[in-house]
């Protein structure tokens, strides 16, 4: 039946790779070779991007708001630090996974609190959990080093082969590899029936349940997975900077993450990545111009984004690339930003 194959073709419409996506990742990879003096900030952006992708999974897809996503980042960061410090797992990749799993356990345990309530309750509960963990980390200073943080972390070579260098080159490519692998996984998941059911739940939980979707179970699953992602981001932070201090749990970190998604847009995976780049660049630019008042300018940018509308901004930004593609390839624009508003 032709209608059937037609349906199959269109159902996979968003799951197919677009040229724009390949170009995006090639540019990111190229940055690693073009700006050898900027590894530290670029690594920082990659971590933030991964962290933002984690929030995007729950916010952009499942519609769960969170002001305490740093809780998982922090647990991942401390777990990686402790594993390396005490020599439990010396190999960074294994330690990274272990740290992610630690955050995942916390995510699973707290998901039951988060899925209850509505948006406002969720904001408060997630915020509360992050604050609680920060206080605990401070209290148990014999384990965490308290306000001094974990000190004297020495990282072993990645896979026993590639040592972390002082310029951050290994750290950058390591972070990029981790980000890309986790991106591929996330991309696979959001285009599966499971991923689609999350969007259905976000759109209309009543109808989602009425077609047989176990709403709570799906929300628990994605929240747990997002915690894993955030834990990995936190572990990358510790591994590439060799420090873990209390500020990994800080409220600013969770709040910044929301801003990143507001800038980049939620619900299409690239929002966190693009948002992270723009957010850090703005931060850099503004803090160079006015070291004291850079937050004012970030705030102004946010207001403009909200007023003008992200879609229109994206259209403006993508106008030129789309035009080029149209002229050169003689085909319809492929660089589009499908997104649902967060």
């Amino acid at each position, binding site marked *: 039946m032709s*209608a059937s194959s037609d349906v199959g073709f269109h159902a996979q419409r968003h*799951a197919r790779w677009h040229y724009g996506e390949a170009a995006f990742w090639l540019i990111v990879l190229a940055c690693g070779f073009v700006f050898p003096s900027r590894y530290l900030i670029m690594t920082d952006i990659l971590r933030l991007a991964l962290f933002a992708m984690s929030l995007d999974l729950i916010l952009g897809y499942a519609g769960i708001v969170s002001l305490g996503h740093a809780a998982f980042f922090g647990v991942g960061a401390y777990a990686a630090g402790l594993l390396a410090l005490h020599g439990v797992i010396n190999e960074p990749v294994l330690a990274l996974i272990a740290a992610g799993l630690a955050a995942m356990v916390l995510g699973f345990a707290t998901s039951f609190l988060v899925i209850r309530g509505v948006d406002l309750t969720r904001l408060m509960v997630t915020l509360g959990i992050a604050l609680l963990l920060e206080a605990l980390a401070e209290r148990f200073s014999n384990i965490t080093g308290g306000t001094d943080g974990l000190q004297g972390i020495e990282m072993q070579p990645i896979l026993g082969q590639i040592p972390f260098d002082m310029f951050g080159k290994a750290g950058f490519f390591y972070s990029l590899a981790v980000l890309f692998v986790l991106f591929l996984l996330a991309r696979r998941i959001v285009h599966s029936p499971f991923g689609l059911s999350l969007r259905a739940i976000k759109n209309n939980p009543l109808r989602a*349940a009425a077609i*047989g979707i176990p709403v709570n179970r799906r929300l628990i699953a994605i929240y747990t997975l997002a915690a894993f992602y955030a834990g990995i981001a936190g572990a990358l932070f510790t591994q590439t900077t060799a420090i873990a201090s209390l500020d990994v749990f800080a409220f600013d970190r969770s709040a910044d993450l929301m801003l990143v998604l507001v800038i980049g847009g939620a619900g299409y995976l690239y929002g966190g990545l693009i948002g992270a780049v723009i957010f850090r660049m703005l931060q850099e630019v503004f803090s160079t111009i006015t070291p004291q008042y850079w937050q004012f300018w970030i705030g102004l940018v946010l207001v403009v984004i909200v007023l003008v509308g992200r879609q229109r901004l994206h259209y403006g930004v993508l106008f030129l690339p789309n035009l080029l593609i149209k002229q050169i390839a003689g085909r319809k624009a492929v660089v589009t930003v499908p997104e649902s508003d967060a």
Partner: protein
Amino acid sequence: MTIALETRNLEKTFGGLRVTRDLSLKIEQGARHALIGPNGAGKTTVINQLTGVLKPNSGRILLEGQDITDLPVHRRVLRGLSRTFQINQLYPDLTPLETIGLAVSERLGHGGDWWRRMGTRSDVNGEIADLLTRFHLLDVMNEQTVTLPYGKQRLLEIAVAIAAKPRVLLLDEPAAGVPESERHDILAVVGSLPRDVTVLLIEHDMDLVFSFADRISVLVSGALLTEGPPEQVARDPQVKAVYLGEEAVNV
């Protein structure tokens, strides 16, 4: 005849208000059963209890002889109880293709599949194509639901419920708000449902009720007033009083 859906002494109160009073209904397998009653009679509240959105204060609900009173909404769907909503409950950002695809995937047990892409199972695709064709949605399958005309949305609402392959289907005012020109599609679809599917229809439109139903239950103030075949209910002086009373107020 076997009983497809049954309520036993169902009671529901909102604060001090008794919205369902000692309601015992029996709906036979394959029946075209209509639940009618004036505004505020508590018809939708009954549906919400049957589907699990609301919990009754007391009483039991049985689906094909099995007690489902304590089951959550999605489990009842998997057991073959599906519904449409009086006011469309769709996914504004999703397309008809995705909406129906989800319902089909869930029923076939692929809903939790997080690795395989949507659209790569030919059995699911076949069913989606079939439903889209039957409900005249093939031409708009890639449009966002929110952009569809109301009549199409209404068809999608029913298609989603059918996609769950229900053995018992609850239709909550399927033709509500549909313009006259698009009404025919909806009535044709409702009329062409397979006979082995039991249908409970909630409706205001008496023409539709009497052309469709083979049995009618009349609900007034949450309690069952009378029940019987259409001719008998139409002649019932109590029913006339209820409806005439309402019309007198409306005039």
